[in-house]
Each structure stands twice: as structure tokens, then as C-alpha cells.
């Protein structure tokens, strides 16, 4: 898959994407600047999903719980215990880690359709839990993280997460970290084993690999990346609510990844961005905008079975990771 030339090309492409995103901070009009900050955070969610779905071939319908674990793991301590932003973000990652580890240990006893159903049921339990503890979460209505609590003291100054430029650049930083982490994972030995599991788990086992341990590591990594997105969403945009734990937010990352291209590192960003603007633009014309989304998905299945970047890789740019 990779000669030295390809490796250089791959890293150059990813560095160029990050450079472009940083440059856009100075170019984009106000609205699209804000949109891209949101999209980048959600793209991280999609990247976490992609790691499991695209590379390991495990189709989860419960990833909203990992996103929401990060959202609540960061939001609740900040709201109720007065934690600072860095501690709250770490809390979100920790919550994502624990939830993903427990769910992984239980759900990985199944595979295929059963894995989909089990993850969906666990996510539903998580969603209902956020409603059940309404005293603390305010359930569906949710909580506002006030502006003054979303600031970080940095030396003599403060880093204000509600400042549009700061927010955007932090979103880019998170996206870059998740992108290079994903890239490093999929190019590592562990990543190759994951792909081998996707292609033929029995054969991988026969070759002596511990497929359960590898899959569990992938679930945990995927969960933590999704939780990072959830924690960042809470801290950057100031809202924590149980809608984000609902089944809709388990299906969205699947659609984003399918659109952009499963098992491509940049596909999740492309899919999330594309879907955002399809809804944003078409909802201005018709309340039946989900029909347009449906049509797009049908066209995708017909002409781009592997998503936009997946198809590009298959037909033209074979070195695309």
C-alpha cells in the first residue's frame, strides 16, 4: 500500500487540508466561519465512528452514547461542580473511555446485526438515563453552560471559547488531532489487523491475532474520539441536552461517513460538510428537505457506493488513505 513516495503524499495532503482550514479562518464570511467550526467538531464525531465502521467493519447504531458521554462528562462537572474547561474536557474523555470500555466488553460478544441491535439498545438505555437523572441533566430541555464559565486563564490573559476565532481554531486543532490520530492508527500494525478483521475475522484469528482485544481497542479509541467531539461541542457551543443521546445522533455519523466514504480519513469531514449544506440550503426552499437528503443518499448508493472519497480512491486516486 505504501512506498515512501505515497507516505509523503499522504502526509502532504493531510497537512494541506489542515493548512486550508486554518487559512479559512481568515477568509470565510461570518456565517460560514461559524458553520465550519460546528462541522469540524461533528466531523470528529464522524471520524470516531468511521474508525469502527470503516476500518473494522463494525456497524454500531449506538454511537450517540459516546458523543453524549463526552457532552455530559464535560458539561455536568462544569455546570454543577464548577470545574474549569481543561478539567471538564478531560472529564468528557474519561467518561467516553469508561462507557466505551464497558459497552465494548459487552457488545463485542456479538457481531453483525446483533452488534447493531445491542449497541442501539445500550444507547437507548444511555438516552433514558440522561432523562431519568433530570434533576441534574434537566433531561430533554438541557443545560446552558454560561459564557463566563467557558473561559480558560492562560498566563496573564484568558482564552475565551465563545470568541468565534478562538472557537474555530480550537475546532481545527481538535480536528487535526483526531485526523492524525486516525491516520496513525490506520497506518499502524494495529490498523492493519483491524482491516484484516473486517476482511476476514476467522483468518485473522487463525494467523494468531487476538481479534477481541484489537476490536475492543478500536471500540475504545472510537468512543474516546466521539467523546472528545461531544465534550468539545458542550464547551464550545454551551449547550448540553439529551437530544444528543437520541437515536438520531447515532444514525447521523453513519450517514456522514457513508456520504464521504467509509474507511477514508477525510471522508467524514466531506460527508458532514456536505450534509450540513444540503440541509441548510434546501430547508430554505421546502419543509420536505429530508426528501432531498433521501434522494442524495439514493444517488450515492447508485453512483458512489463507497462514498465520494471511497469512489475516488477506487477509480482515480489509489493512494488515498
Amino acid at each position: 500500500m505504501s512506498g515512501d513516495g505515497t507516505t509523503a503524499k499522504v502526509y502532504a495532503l493531510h497537512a494541506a487540508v489542515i493548512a486550508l482550514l486554518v487559512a479559512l479562518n481568515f477568509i470565510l464570511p461570518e456565517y460560514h466561519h461559524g458553520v465550519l467550526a460546528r462541522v469540524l467538531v461533528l466531523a470528529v464525531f464522524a471520524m470516531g465512528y468511521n474508525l469502527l465502521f470503516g476500518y473494522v467493519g463494525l456497524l454500531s447504531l449506538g454511537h450517540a452514547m459516546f458523543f453524549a458521554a463526552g457532552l455530559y462528562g464535560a458539561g455536568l462537572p462544569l455546570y454543577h461542580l464548577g470545574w474549569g474547561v481543561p478539567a471538564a474536557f478531560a472529564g468528557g474523555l474519561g467518561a467516553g473511555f469508561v462507557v466505551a470500555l464497558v459497552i465494548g466488553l459487552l457488545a463485542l460478544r456479538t457481531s453483525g446485526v446483533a452488534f447493531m441491535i445491542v449497541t442501539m439498545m445500550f444507547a437507548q438505555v444511555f438516552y433514558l438515563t440522561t432523562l431519568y437523572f433530570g434533576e441534574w441533566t434537566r433531561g430533554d430541555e438541557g443545560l446552558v453552560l454560561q459564557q463566563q464559565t467557558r473561559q480558560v486563564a492562560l498566563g496573564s490573559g484568558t482564552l475565551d471559547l465563545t470568541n468565534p476565532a478562538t472557537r474555530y481554531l480550537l475546532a481545527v486543532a481538535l480536528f487535526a488531532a483526531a485526523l492524525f490520530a486516525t491516520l496513525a492508527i490506520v497506518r499502524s500494525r494495529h490498523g492493519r489487523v483491524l482491516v484484516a478483521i473486517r476482511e476476514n475475522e476467522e483468518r485473522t484469528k487463525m494467523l494468531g491475532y487476538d481479534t477481541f482485544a484489537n476490536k475492543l481497542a478500536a471500540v475504545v479509541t472510537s468512543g474516546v474520539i466521539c467523546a472528545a467531539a461531544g465534550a468539545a461541542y458542550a464547551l464550545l457551543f454551551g449547550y448540553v441536552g439529551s437530544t444528543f443521546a437520541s437515536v438520531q445522533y447515532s444514525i447521523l455519523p453513519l450517514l456522514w461517513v457513508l456520504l464521504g466514504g467509509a474507511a477514508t480519513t477525510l471522508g467524514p469531514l466531506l460527508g458532514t460538510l456536505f450534509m450540513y449544506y444540503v440541509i441548510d440550503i434546501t430547508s430554505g426552499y421546502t419543509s420536505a428537505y429530508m426528501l432531498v437528503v433521501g434522494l442524495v443518499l439514493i444517488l450515492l448508493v447508485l453512483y458512489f457506493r463507497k462514498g465520494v472519497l471511497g469512489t475516488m480512491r477506487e477509480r482515480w486516486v489509489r493512494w488515498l488513505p
Partner: protein
Amino acid sequence: MTKRFFDIGKTGLSRRTALKGIAAGAGLMAAPGFVRYSQAQSSAPIKIGFQAHRTGIGAAYGRWYEKTTNAAVKLINDAGGINGRPVEIIVEDDGTDPKRGAEVVAKFASQHKTDIVFGTLFSHVVVGSAPTAGELKIPYYVVSEGYHVASGKLNRWVFQPGITDVRSQVTSVAPWVAANLGKKVTMIYPDYAFGYDHRDYFAPAIKAQGGEVVAQIPIPPTESSFTKYLPQIPADTEVLYHVMVGPGVLTFVKELGEFYGSNKPQLFGFIDSLEAVDINSPGLEFLDGSHFWEGSPRYAQANDSEAQKAYRAAVGIDDNGASTTDAKDVSTAAHMFGCWETLYVIKKAMEDSGYKGPEDRAKLVEATEALTKFKEGPEHPQGDKKFNGKLHQVFGHQNISKVEGGKLNVVHRTSIEDGLYEPEADYTTQPL
């Protein structure tokens, strides 16, 4: 392949047609995505961003909120607009989703460049959108009835000046319930935030009237059948207080009927779950003789004021509270008046502050906070109101209606004082 589609010479297109096409294309490009608006001129319209629930669970409400808003804006414009400028409503669908709600507020502020944002109903969308409104410093006038603005948990840019909040509603009906229906109350409510407002504020209110809540039965939002909860209702219950927001209400009423037969306690409910639903729908017979809270009455009443009659005619609802063009299209009358009244509050605050454009948004906030009361009349057809500028919340009269003869007849109207409570917040201390 590309050539075949785009070779003008071969298609026989004239240059004029091609230019028209390009112009149309440019127009399309400019439409929603990449528009740059010029500075508002003195005669340019005042733009109000209407965050509408066109899709999602709030769609029935959203449709009527939109009708009411359009009717009010037409009247305002016919009468000369606001500060001599016409009002333009720009609608964006939030899908009744808090994430999309926040995105829509950002779109209004930074792309449509609206002067304010208005019209949200569902509490989770209000709470999800409020941080964005605060950060972008755009006044955000909601018509939600949730106890979120008055709780002090939002920010200085969010107002609810057109509809009373749920804490005030439940507090104000308690004296009448205790005096007329009974003192031992069992509450059935949805097990989420909206239900908790009822749970937390009705119980102390009925206690203050010498009554008591003998049982509280929360129903999880995923329930589609309620039979297993009904035996939890204590036998000595005199009043069953029910709030069942969501599509489960028809099943709930049917199963309640089967559970009790003809020997039932008094029923007191909130109309919220039956908004846009015909009270004479099959299965709702059990509600005959029961009582409901209504913000504004659905059915025309004998003593309706001229302002109320004019309002109903302008919005286009008949004496049964259904659309004048389709008798099956039942309105959300108990809540939608809030859009009408909120728009007139915005008009008043803009006039008081001499509002010219987005640079005056802070002045608009202060002018809204300075308002104290609204007189009953064409601008406030539901009734007179008191506004608490520190809480950003309005307080008005509530109606208690009885289901009789297939209609809802108002049997009691609370006073504004019935619904007042000790304020817990003061937004005016926050910087603008």
C-alpha cells in the same frame, strides 16, 4: 461528455438566452447560501428572524405560530410598520431540534442579518439556542411558556414577553382546583423537564390552598401504553391532574376511560397535548365534563372582547378554533396568541428605544426590560399583562375551561396575581 452538455453553439442557444441563464444562475448562487446584504437603510424593512418548527415534533404548533405571526405582521405593516419601516419576517426551520435551533439563530444573526430572532416554542430548542443568541448579542424573543427564561438560567438577550410561563400557570390554577374540584390530587406527568415544572410548582401551590398531592406518577416518554401506571392512582384521589405532552394522549385518555368506567375522579388537564386535536375525536369522550387549562380559549366565548374577535378573524379561526378554510384543521389557540402579542411588544420596545438597526440591539434590550404592563386590546387580545423586566417574563390571566357539549367553555379566569411568584433572577445585572 462535458462538451456535449455545455457547447452553446451546438445547442442553438442565443447569447441573450445564455446571459439570462448565467444571470439566473448567479441569482441562485446568491439566494440562501452566500448572500451579502447591504446596510439597512432608514426605509429598509425591519427584519425579524422567525425560528419556526416547520418539521419535527413541533410542526403542528409551528404551522399555527406561522399563521398567527403572518396575520400580526400584516396588521402592523398596514398600520405603518415599526418606526415607519415595514416588518419583514424571514423564516428558518429548526426541525424542533436544539442543535439546528442554535445554527438557525447564527444564520439569522450573521447571514440574514436580521434585527432580532423570534417565535420559538419548544423548551429544548429555546435552551439550546439561547447561548448562541447571547454570544452573538441578538435579542431573542421566545413564545415557549417554559420556565426557562424566568429561572435565570439563560441570558440577558432572551425574553418571553408574550406568554405566561408554566410555573405561573400551574400556580394560578391551584386555588380554583382546590376550591372546586377537590383537595387530594394525583399528578400524572411526562418524565422529563416539562413535566418536572408541573411536579415542582403545582404541589406547593395546592398545599398553600389546604390541599395535597397524594401521588405523583411520572410517565417515561417512550411509553405507548399507560395501563400499568393507572393502578398506582390512590383510591382516595379526588382530582386527577394530567399533563401528557405527545402523541400518546389519545391512548392515555382511552385507557383511563377503560380503567375508571363511569365512576371517575375529577379530571384537570393542560390542553398542550390536545392542541391541534379536535376535542370531539373518537376516544376522547371520556374527557366530557373534565376541565382544562387554556392560555387563550380555543372556542369563541359569549363574552369575547372586540379585540379577541378581531384577532380570531385576522388569524383565520372560526368559532370552534379551527381554520376558517378547513374545519378539520384545529388550531393551537391556547398558545399561538403569544406570537401576536410578542410582536406588538417588540414593536413597542423598538419604538421606545428609537431602534434603527443592529447597532441599537442593546438599547432594544434595555427598552424591553423597561416595559411594565400591557393593556388588553387589539395588541393584547388575550388580556392585560404585567411584565417583569428583571425576569424577562410576562404574567397574564389563565383560563380554566370545561368540556361540555363538545366544546370548551371557560368557567374561570384567574387573576394575574394568582400566578405571581417570588422571582429567582435578575438579568439586568448581566453586562450587555
